[in-house]
């Protein structure tokens, strides 16, 4: 038993030194334009989603499920989100792909999150990503309209798409 504890203590010291050396010698790759392994990326994405599911409220969107809500959200989206997350009917955002983790492309790839989870992420942001919190810039009601829009960004009613298009410039 005494040897078991000695072995255990040695393992703790060994791992602490190995970690400190790995970090201090600069071996943690920080380049955003190189991808970590699929294993690491997949695990971290799953962990992030698990944390959002655990923390976000479980509720329905309090706004009316109507084209007006989608149009209001769509206008906000085209103002502030489209640069990284891509626009409806447009190719995926090149800028959004230059982050790591890359910004999810809602109009082409959709999202697994519920509207309440989208609302929560938009409001609070996501730590250690380029997703900064919007809670100080938008009211809750605005963020709910945005969540409704993003949730359906892959499958928007044509009337909504038409009315959020910017007027054609001459």
């Amino acid at each position, binding site marked *: 038993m005494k040897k078991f504890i000695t072995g255990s203590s040695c393992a703790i010291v060994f791992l602490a030194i190995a970690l400190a050396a790995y970090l201090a010698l600069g071996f943690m790759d920080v380049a955003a334009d190189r991808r970590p392994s699929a294993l690491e990326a997949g695990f971290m994405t799953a962990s992030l989603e698990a*944390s959002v599911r655990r923390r976000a409220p479980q509720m329905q969107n309090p706004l009316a499920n109507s084209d007006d809500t989608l149009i209001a959200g769509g206008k906000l989206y085209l103002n502030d989100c489209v640069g990284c997350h891509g626009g409806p009917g447009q190719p995926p955002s090149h800028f959004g792909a230059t982050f790591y983790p890359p910004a999810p492309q809602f109009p082409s790839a959709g999202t697994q999150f519920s509207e309440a989870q989208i609302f929560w992420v938009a409001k609070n942001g996501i730590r250690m990503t380029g997703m900064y919190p919007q809670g100080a810039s938008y009211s809750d009601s605005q963020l709910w309209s945005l969540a409704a829009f993003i949730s359906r960004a892959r499958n928007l009613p044509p009337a909504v798409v038409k009315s959020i298009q910017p007027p054609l410039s001459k």
Partner: protein
Amino acid sequence: MKNFVLGFLATVLLILIVPLTYLRLGAAEVRGDVRAPSWESRLMRFARHASVTRSAQGIQNPLPHSDEQLIAGAKMYLDGCAGCHGRPGRPARNRIAYAPPPEFAHVGSPYREPELFWVVKHGIRRTGMSAYASFYSDQQVWQLVEFVQQMNNLPPAVFDAIQPERP
């Protein structure tokens, strides 16, 4: 000896499994508007700095320093960087609690020119700093870097040249 090895292996396994379980169950904080504990920010800043220093070894600025380079860099900075990193004399309206973008106009940069060059080109993983190599030429990035390094100490002629035009 057998017990020593068993104790060693069991502890290594435990130390790997506990944080992975913690993460996978969604226990980790993900909100971007909540500050991380200071030990975590400090440890990550330290490791990031070590990694950038290592990656930028051997890079050298080929451009001569001049007012023209600074002015060209300032224009790119004010267009593309000031929103998160602040402009001279005006702090950024920054809402990113973690990891916060450095406010160059207040605190300067912890990096030397070759390191900044590397960061602008490749970005920093797990932050809001994206990789700009596909948007700017190397020469433009060097101009940007020179401006960032000198923005709190600009020659008066450069300072005047980059002020917004008054109507």
